[in-house]
């Protein structure tokens, strides 16, 4: 059974970008629907304390998202807990299909965010949920007193490390480069933890284990001077590892948390221009005097974008919310200009 409903704007995604856009479009008097996705709320649902969202001091990520959703629904916006399966943009109105519904929209805001990028090593699939995880706040409970690792060098790796270090016996933070790209305040917090050690210039070649993770196969090409070891053997021994050849070694671990980055959720969109990493490309538009007219347009007129699905640079809850607001303002202007 399919029902057809026509909206001024269909918002795909329910993280800070999508929900902020919904607050604005609804208040503009535009009929608005949010297609929340298979998992609503986005990446903040996988976090614990958020301490940089203005006005909240310190709040749990899932609670912040609950508040945003309550705000949106309180304004009368329908938030559908379904996944968009396709977006048809070859004619207007645009058509979004879900399993049971066909939605028609004069405009669409693509705010589908980004998901965990996995390591892509041979045994990862087999050991996911068996020691390989991407959510320390969810799974820390299972690693009390255990030896674990975190892979990554950005903000999320720092957050995962802080969370897991509270319960694990010791944590090895594995980073492929010689320096972290995370915010200094977060790196400093991690470095101050007594049970965290860092492995620089080290890549994960595979995860090891039969029914549960027992170790991580690592490749260390050039030992960082920061490690304070003269030789590869010294490094391997200091971490209680097992040498395999001149560069490869196995580090015994019962858990590994993957925080190496994100993959934008753009797989279902046909005809929408994305860059080589899959991020939606924005097409800025200026008027005849060079004044910025639209910031969040895509290559398809009437389709706008906001948040991490197009933003590989800032990736904050507050910037996603800001982009959501901008997309809503652009939608309103565009509908007025085109007389739709």
């Amino acid at each position, binding site marked *: 059974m399919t029902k057809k409903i026509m909206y001024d704007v269909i918002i795909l995604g329910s993280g800070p970008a999508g929900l902020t856009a919904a607050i604005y479009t609804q208040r503009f008097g535009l009929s608005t629907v949010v297609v929340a996705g298979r*998992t609503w709320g986005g990446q*903040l*649902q996988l976090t614990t304390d958020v301490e940089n969202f203005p006005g909240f001091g310190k709040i749990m*990520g899932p609670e912040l998202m609950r508040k945003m959703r309550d705000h949106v629904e309180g304004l009368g916006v329908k938030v559908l*807990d379904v*996944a968009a399966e396709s977006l048809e943009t070859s004619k207007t109105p645009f058509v979004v299909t879900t399993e049971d519904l066909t939605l028609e929209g004069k405009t669409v805001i693509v705010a589908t965010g980004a998901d965990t990028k996995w390591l892509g090593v041979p045994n990862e699939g087999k050991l996911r*949920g068996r020691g390989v995880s991407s959510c320390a706040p969810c799974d820390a*409970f*299972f690693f009390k007193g255990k030896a674990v690792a975190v892979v990554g060098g950005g903000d999320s790796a720092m957050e995962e490390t802080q969370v897991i270090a509270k319960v694990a016996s010791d944590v090895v933070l594995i980073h492929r480069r010689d320096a972290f790209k995370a915010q200094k305040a977060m790196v400093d917090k991690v470095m101050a933890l007594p049970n965290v050690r860092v492995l620089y210039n080290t890549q994960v070649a595979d995860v090891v284990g039969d029914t549960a993770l027992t170790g991580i196969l690592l490749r260390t090409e050039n030992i960082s001077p920061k490690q304070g070891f003269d030789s590869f053997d010294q490094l391997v021994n200091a971490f209680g590892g097992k040498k395999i050849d001149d560069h490869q070694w196995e580090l015994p671990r019962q*858990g590994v948390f993957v925080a190496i980055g994100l993959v934008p959720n753009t797989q279902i969109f046909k005809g929408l221009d994305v860059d080589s990493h899959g991020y939606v490309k924005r097409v800025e538009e200026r008027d005849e005097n060079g004044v910025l007219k639209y910031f969040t347009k895509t290559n398809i007129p009437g389709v706008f974008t906001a948040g991490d699905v197009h933003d590989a640079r800032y990736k904050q809850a507050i910037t996603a919310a800001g982009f959501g607001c901008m997309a809503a303002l652009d939608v309103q202007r565009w509908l007025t200009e085109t007389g739709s």
Partner: protein
Amino acid sequence: MADVTITDQNFDTEVLKADKPVLVDFWAPWCGPCQMQGPIVEEVAAAMDGKAVVGKMNVDENPNTAQKYGVMSIPTLMVFKGGTVVKQFIGVTSKEALLGELNKLIN
């Protein structure tokens, strides 16, 4: 029918000795994705009324069963039939995927 609360104590009778397929949702209150999974599991329970048992197990209050089955990520969803695990899903799983798996075991 609503979903059943599974515990370390009733696991044997409610899950292992059940004469129907059983879906168990391993969850905990601190886990964000588990809060998304909960309502999906309740919908599955309503849809499978009388044809399958659908239960939720709080791993914080019932650590033994989770440990026995090697649960190390939540949400984890396991489908049991005749006392053995026939399918396992890691991470938030859609209603369609869960219903599909249970229906396979019924027909």
